[in-house]
């Protein structure tokens, strides 16, 4: 039996005037998995996310969400999706509970279902004791938890998250990771766009790396690392002149490099030893792959 796909994109193109935001993108999200859409700012991640709710209409290509063809059948698909937007759009003068109740209505839960659904969402977001607090009074982390809980109030089959932890403290980010990981374990299909490498590495079953509107690589994070960067990389430290020299030597030697501020990283050094400059070996990371493939440094 073929694998059931929660999301299936084929040859998607979206242009804004002369700018091609998405340029022939293919993307699959198998049901019950978490796929990370990783890419630098401007890679086309948000445009892609908005296509999945038909708020952006593709110029070319095929889109299916939960078996429904978009944009024609988008409304049926949307009823079974939860969306966590990049920009917080909670109703700030309403209470936590009111925000959830509004979405229980918008997602068409029946009268008897709404109360339990709101309670479940409060529990999930650990905001039970703040249910009567206005959104204005919540911390940034609480608002994000509420935003995620709001997307889950109708127990969607598919969760779309656009940069779910952008701008949050590391500690708050880890709290959210635990929440997202629990959802994935519960069988919810998830597509998550992010430009945080660690987030994709920890949460995603597979990662699609986007650059300039195209998918430049896809696979399990560990497989992507060994395929594109090998097992280990060599980190060479030194003054700028020395780094430039090492970089030039490595490129002449057929190695790939990346600059990371105070060091230069030599990639593809597995099985080589004596002929290389002095440096520190460390395991290759998804960040190395990301930089290699997108040509962008991490902020």
């Amino acid at each position: 039996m073929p694998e059931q796909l929660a999301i299936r994109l084929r040859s998607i193109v979206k242009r804004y005037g002369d700018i091609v935001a998405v340029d022939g993108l293919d993307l699959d999200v198998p049901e019950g998995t978490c796929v990370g859409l990783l890419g630098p700012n401007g890679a086309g991640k948000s445009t892609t996310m908005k296509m999945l709710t038909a708020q952006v209409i593709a110029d070319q290509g095929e889109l299916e969400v939960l078996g429904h063809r978009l944009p024609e059948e988008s409304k049926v698909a949307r009823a079974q999706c939860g969306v966590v937007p990049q920009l917080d759009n909670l109703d700030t003068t309403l209470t936590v509970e009111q925000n959830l109740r509004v979405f229980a209505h918008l997602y068409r839960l029946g009268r008897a279902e709404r109360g339990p659904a709101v309670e479940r969402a409060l529990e999930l977001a650990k905001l039970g004791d703040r249910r009567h607090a206005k959104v204005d009074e919540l911390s940034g982390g609480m608002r994000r938890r509420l935003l995620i809980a709001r997307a889950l109030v109708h127990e969607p089959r598919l969760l779309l998250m656009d940069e779910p932890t952008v701008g949050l403290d590391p500690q708050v980010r880890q709290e959210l990771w635990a929440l997202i990981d629990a959802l994935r374990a519960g069988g919810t299909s998830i597509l998550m766009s992010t430009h945080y490498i660690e987030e994709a590495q920890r949460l995603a079953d597979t990662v699609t790396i986007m650059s300039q509107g195209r998918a430049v690589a896809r696979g399990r994070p560990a497989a992507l690392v060994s395929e594109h960067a090998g097992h280990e990389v060599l980190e060479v430290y030194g003054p700028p002149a020395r780094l430039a020299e090492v970089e030039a030597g490595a490129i002449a030697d057929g190695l790939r490099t990346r600059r990371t501020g105070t060091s230069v990283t030599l990639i593809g050094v597995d099985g080589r030893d004596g002929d290389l400059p002095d440096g520190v070996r460390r395991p290759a990371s998804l960040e190395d792959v990301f930089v290699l493939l997108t040509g962008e440094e991490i902020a």
Partner: protein
Amino acid sequence: MIGRRRAAGRLGRLERPAIQGVLFREITNFSSFWRSTTFSSTVEPTIYLLAFGFGFGSLVSKVAGYDYVDFVGTGIVATAVLFSSVFPSMFGTFVKYQFQHTYDAILAAPVDTEELVTAEALWIATRAGTYGCVPMLIAMAFGLDPSPGMLAVPLIAFGSGFGWACFGIMIAGILKSIDNFNYVTSTIITPMFLVAGTFFPLSELPRWAQVLGNVNPLHHTVELVRHAAFGWDAGADLAHLGALVLFAAVMWRLAIRAMERKLIT
């Protein structure tokens, strides 16, 4: 897969649950600011009534066959409808779209732009239907006699309010900056507000102004409200009603089109 898709099909247009969902959001939000809205919607027409009714009324006792207080008291219903529909819809829509990103959240749910715009306009029209009656009630305190026809006033105010709400949503959908609203207020809303037969009868104006008055939906609102209060004029009132319905229907479709262009790219 294909079988399931067919079975589920596509959801219809203008579905009641979608409209109810948006209305529920609006009503919940309104519960946090109804006091200030009700205050201004009550005080403003009272000030107009006092200023014109007593200021102007001391110079003229009768206008177009009515006591001036009765004339203005019924006319200001239309002003109240205009102010309680066009401004909340223009500014509210723009703020929800541009600053609060509320519409992004709503359109990610199973709600289409057509349903969103319709629900927003219905809610504003309901408020206009209610607040529109306030000046008439205040005028009663100053001597306007109640009549059974006045029971139609909330409905007239609702219909007119729906049209103006859609007009405001359309403007918010077309204009790129909230500052540009001033152009619309100065060139469309203020002239319409003044040349509607609220404070003085159009029959005394030059011919061209009378023609302009007849394309002003607010004028038809004023006439219908006055006739509701003082006696219907079947032929004329059907024409006024027809004009209001046409205005509301055209604005409704234009508002949907403008917002679709803005929200779906």
